[in-house]
């Protein structure tokens, strides 16, 4: 489990397992691999996962896989909605380790495959509400963040969890610009992180997570705006202070730390009252806490809900 010093592997040792090759993706930047030929429609690396099926029924249609994988924000690969699907093939997702440090009793470097083996995977079909007022319904596969947190035993002083995305401009062309101060950072209060709805996703539609959706492991917090769902995580740190988060650093008036879905608090430049569900023509009303209020509203008792944007 605990990898004290993962040996650095050369390019030749890296399997192409993590190279998610799809139509329209090209291999620019992956010099030396000589993988000019792209396979057909089925991704080379999407392996079926074993998981317990979804147990929280949701009577909303799932967003088609093709839409989930072709339309999202992942600024590490560019600011266009189609950039992640185009360029995320450049990212290597094996070997992959997550550094866990800060105020916990079992810090260390954890290998992704060990985590996937250690924690039973389950499917969670969640609504995903982007701060840009569009939404999807996505069948994730993963394990509760709480399982991992309990395993590394946070100390009593730990009040927050901070996350970081991989920073490597060679694999992430969007990082060659400075739209965001890299690496991408996110954070949760410890009680939010321990909430049973909070998921570390490693799969999508029963298969390993495609690169553009945050492979090999990403955060999913369904009652918060999508940008809280940090992708391709390489570091998890326990702290006693509220961590800085990327979008808050960029525009604190527009994107708060909590970023709970709240139809009553507009983004300064658009209303959050409604959302466009991908695949639907007419907009639907946005629900407080994205429809998960029953489960999570208790976390915020006593706080002014208008501050929880």
């Amino acid at each position: 489990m605990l990898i004290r010093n993962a040996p650095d592997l050369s390019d030749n040792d890296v399997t192409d397992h993590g190279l998610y090759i799809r139509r329209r993706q090209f291999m620019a930047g992956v010099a030396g691999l000589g993988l000019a030929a792209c396979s057909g429609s089925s991704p080379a690396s999407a392996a079926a996962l074993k998981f317990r099926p979804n147990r929280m029924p949701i009577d909303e249609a799932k967003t088609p896989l093709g839409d989930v994988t072709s339309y999202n924000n992942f600024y590490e690969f560019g600011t266009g909605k189609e950039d992640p699907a185009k360029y995320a093939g450049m990212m290597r997702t094996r070997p992959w380790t997550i550094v866990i440090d800060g105020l916990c009793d079992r810090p260390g470097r954890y290998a992704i495959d060990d985590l996937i083996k250690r924690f039973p995977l389950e499917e969670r079909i969640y609504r995903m509400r982007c701060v840009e007022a569009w939404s999807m319904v996505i069948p994730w596969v993963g394990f509760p963040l709480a399982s991992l947190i309990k395993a590394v035993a946070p100390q009593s002083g730990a009040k927050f969890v901070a996350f970081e995305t991989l920073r490597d401009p060679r694999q992430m062309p969007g990082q060659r610009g400075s739209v965001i101060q890299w690496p991408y950072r996110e954070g949760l209060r410890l009680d939010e992180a321990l909430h049973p709805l909070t998921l570390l996703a490693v799969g999508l539609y029963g298969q390993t997570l495609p690169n553009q959706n945050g492979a090999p492991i990403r955060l999913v917090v369904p009652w918060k705006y999508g940008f809280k769902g940090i992708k391709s995580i390489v570091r998890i740190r326990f702290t006693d202070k509220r961590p800085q988060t990327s979008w808050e650093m960029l525009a604190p008036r527009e994107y708060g730390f909590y970023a709970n879905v709240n139809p009553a608090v507009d983004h300064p430049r658009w209303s959050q009252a409604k959302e466009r569900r991908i695949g639907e023509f007419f907009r639907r009303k946005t629900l407080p806490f994205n429809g998960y209020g029953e489960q999570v509203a208790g976390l915020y008792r006593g706080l002014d809900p208008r501050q929880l944007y």
Partner: protein
Amino acid sequence: MGREKRPIRARLESALVWLLCAAPLLLILAWGFTGDLTANPVEFVLRDLGLWGLRFLCLTLAVTLLAKYGRMPRLMRYRRRIGLWAFAYVALHLLTYVVIAHEFDWAEIATDIAKRPYITIGMGAFALLVPLAVTSANAVRRKMSPKAWRKLHRLIYLIAIMGVIHYFLLVKADTSSPLLYGGIVLVLLAARMPLGSLFKSAGNRAVQR
């Protein structure tokens, strides 16, 4: 562009210009049929039409300069058409915003105009474009004094600047594209400045036109 004045050639040329102006719109329609408007077609069409509105405003501004400095005087005969296409794209952009993006929710649209500067500026730019489109008709133009007409149509400078500000204010983080268009508009306007008059006493009115 040839110098021959054979009608067939002129007609072909005219048809080609028309087709080029309509191409972005035809492409959107074609993508609509093939399902290539991304997973969020409403957002894509809204953005694309707005962007083409801004591009055609830039093109309209560029025509005058190209005709004068690029030795393409024949382009001038298409300036009105290109300007009207700018109006068409901006109008379709607004129509998409009202009809599809906001489903005729007038209260929501009113809030947008009142509360969100980029919408206020966008609406203002459209309002200023309307008189330019209306006075493009020959019948109307003939009723105006050429001086008044030229003065009115200088509004396009302001409209182009407002278009860039509208675009700049709406993007989330990546301002590179709005800044690019800002630079283009700046160059197109700067090229009209009567720089010559700084050195010579003679005015340079032709450039301003």
